[in-house]
């Protein structure tokens, strides 16, 4: 009995040291629906595939700027319609095949193919054709100049050419060229990646592997990282992070989110068809109070673009309606010809932080001439009502993007695919169309500044807050950098000390 116990202890000890020094144990909250980088868009898939299993021609760094990845450099023709990319040398796929220009062409073709029906296809809408000039050079010809193209290419993973017309092959068993390769997926249990020995940067990765443990219960994830069973909780919200702040052995990395919270309004029916009522709602909100009360101080008020996008975002001082005034709100309602409190039902995304925010918003609106009621359905029902514009107004969160074009265009252009507000503003449409084709950075910036001003106070959305995004890790985890788009690509530089 005693001998047996000793042997067990030895075996357990041996197992523990080899595992903890090499494989980074992470805990994430949900199972991804799949791992095909051209088909998945949810964050819980992105943080497993993006920059870890897969790379694109370009990448987004921690400052949200576009940097080279599989393309080591590129030239743009003077008319802005031809891009020539030179690929890094020595890149191989996890299945052993060399990564060549033909794979890049096939990957772009796969995303644009009707049959694959990739949700990323619209990001390549400007591409007319892609050609392999030689094994290491790819030429993209565009229909019209496209300023956001280089940023968009960061989200287009390069896959082996053999998958060009294979729709299901990558969902369960991804094959990329990134620093980590897929090893095992125990459904609802974990997803494990191991070091890709043939990675083109020989110095990376430093870890032997990554293990994404799927742990749905928040309390369990917290105990897991404080006790050291998990070395990292990637991309967590303020509520969880602040509970871990100051715990011995735990460190937090943080950055401002691209995603924001908003009150979205249906401009196709009363009362929010009237711009004055929309402006009144903006004045009624006290954004600093929302940050304090619902985000525990971990966030900032923000306009149509995240303050994290330093190259693009206007300071909120430029938006008069961000100075809270209940009296001004009531004046505007009077000017809009409204008598008595304006009754509105707010459809609320059933997520804890959003529910907290909605309650603060409700109280603020009710002090400024509105009579707001909350309707908190279950997620499936929310999505359906949201998608069908079946609301007066909704309280939710919207994912931003690293280039303003992508998210502005689909969200606020008339007929945009996520323009559930039914907003149509000819000036905004014109600005968005011209900025998209503009290659001069200064002119683009000016166009998006006008868009921000047009949207901020009487647009279809009252932009509220940008929260802090956190990653919690054990103190001995080194070299990790958090990125607002939730990519974990810096895990390639990460090490775990003793």
């Amino acid at each position, binding site marked *: 009995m005693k001998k047996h116990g000793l042997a*067990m202890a030895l075996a*357990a000890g041996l197992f*523990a040291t080899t595992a903890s020094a090499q494989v980074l144990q992470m*805990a994430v909250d949900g*199972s991804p*629906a*799949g791992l095909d980088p051209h088909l998945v*868009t*949810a964050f819980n898939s992105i943080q497993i595939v993006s920059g870890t299993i897969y790379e694109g021609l370009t990448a987004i760094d921690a400052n949200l700027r576009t940097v080279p990845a599989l393309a080591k450099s590129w030239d743009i023709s003077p008319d802005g319609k031809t891009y020539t990319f030179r690929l890094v040398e020595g890149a191989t796929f996890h299945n052993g095949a060399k990564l060549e220009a033909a794979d890049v062409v096939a990957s772009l073709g796969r995303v644009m193919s009707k049959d694959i*029906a990739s*949700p990323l*296809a*619209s990001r390549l809408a400007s591409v007319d054709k892609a050609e392999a000039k030689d094994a290491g050079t790819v030429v993209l010809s565009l229909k019209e100049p496209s300023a956001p193209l280089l940023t968009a290419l960061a989200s287009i993973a390069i896959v082996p050419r053999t998958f060009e017309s294979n729709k*299901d092959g990558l*969902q*369960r068993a991804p094959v990329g060229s990134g620093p980590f390769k897929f090893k095992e997926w*125990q*459904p*609802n*249990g*974990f997803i494990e990646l191991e070091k890709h020995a043939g990675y083109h940067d020989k110095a990376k990765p430093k870890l032997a592997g990554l293990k994404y*443990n*799927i*742990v*749905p*219960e928040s*309390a*369990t994830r917290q*105990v*897991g990282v*404080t*006790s*050291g*069973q998990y070395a990292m909780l990637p991309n967590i919200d303020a509520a969880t992070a602040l509970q871990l702040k100051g715990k011995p052995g735990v460190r937090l990395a943080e950055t401002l989110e691209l995603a924001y919270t908003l009150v979205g309004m249906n401009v196709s029916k009363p009362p929010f068809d009237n711009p004055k009522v929309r402006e009144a709602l903006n004045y009624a909100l006290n954004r600093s109070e929302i940050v304090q009360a619902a985000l525990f101080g971990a966030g900032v008020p923000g306009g149509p673009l995240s303050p994290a996008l330093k190259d693009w975002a206007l300071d909120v001082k430029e938006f008069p309606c961000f100075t809270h005034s209940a009296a001004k709100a009531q004046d505007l309602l009077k000017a809009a010809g409204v008598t008595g409190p304006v009754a509105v039902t707010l459809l609320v995304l059933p997520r804890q932080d959003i529910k907290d925010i909605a309650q603060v918003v409700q109280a603020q609106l009710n002090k400024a001439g509105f009579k707001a009621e909350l309707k908190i*359905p*279950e*997620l*499936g*029902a*929310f*999505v*359906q009502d949201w*998608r069908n514009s079946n609301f007066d107004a909704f309280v939710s969160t919207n994912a931003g993007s690293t280039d303003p074009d992508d998210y502005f265009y*689909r969200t606020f252009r008339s007929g945009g*695919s*996520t323009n559930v507000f039914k907003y149509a503003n000819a000036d905004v449409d014109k600005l968005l169309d011209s900025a998209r084709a503009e290659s001069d950075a200064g002119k683009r910036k000016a166009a998006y500044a006008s868009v921000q001003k047009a949207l901020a106070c009487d647009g279809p959305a009252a932009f509220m807050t940008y929260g802090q995004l956190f990653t919690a890790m054990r103190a001995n985890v080194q070299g990790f950098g958090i990125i607002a788009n939730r990519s974990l690509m810096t895990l390639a530089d990460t090490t775990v000390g003793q």
Partner: protein
Amino acid sequence: MKLLASRLADLLVVLVGVSVITFLMIRLIPGDAVAIMLGANTEVTPEKIAELRARLGLDQPLVSQYFQWLGGVLSGDLGVSIWTRRPVSQEIGAHIRPTVQLAAMALVFGAGLAVPLGVLMARWRGNRMNALLQIGTVAGLTIPSFWLGIMMILLLSAVAPEAQVLGYVPFTEAPLESLKRLALPAFALALPILANLARLVRSAMLDALAQDYVRTARAKGVSEASVFFKHALRNALIPFVTSLGIMTGYLLGGAIVVEQVFAIPGLGRLVLGAIAERNYPLVQAVVLVVTVTFVGVNFLVDLLYAAIDPRVRP
């Protein structure tokens, strides 16, 4: 034989009833699979929605959807998961082992400890230890297992921070590690059953001890131990065996919560996810499997009951 046939007929009625109810319930909650699937997608058009509905067979009338599904099940085909496009039987196969192991361990804990505990409680009736045990069992019945689970994890992380208690290791890969990981969740799951069964054994023992045959045995000069264990306990175990069958229902329901807390990739996690995604075939199949298990176990218990208690035999 007649007993067998009538029980089998009951079983069939239950299964059909449950399948109809599940089929309707999952479809009656607002929000459908297609809307959720396309939720975050940036290129949704009404044509795309219609096309997807048609591909999934969701554009058919409910009645024909039901019979199509029933036909499949009867020929051994549980359908395909809407989200992963993998056969439902494969998804269930990948998730059933942790749940079975968890339930089995909980049953061993619960039933195994309940008998000695119940006997002790009967033996100590009226003294202070009994009062303590009584309070303990009431607590065991009322503490929700998710809360107990979180408290146990917190406690253990304070006492033994190196202990690995979260997640699941297959029994076939590392039997000891597997048992170690599931010990805590199994205990959290077992506690209500343990409390329930112990109280049952206690009252059945007290009943049995008041019977004439016990008085007769004592009058014959049979030793107290023999009276307790041979005469009283054997009779007291009859209701115990019956409720064991009912307890499998608790176990399977409780497993959903406990798997969530302890990050165990079992059937509970599978079905929770499937409900959130409106993955109709998967929800239907899991509920069917759980129902068949529950009904099957109770069927076995009925047979067992007939075996241990001659009076039940027709």
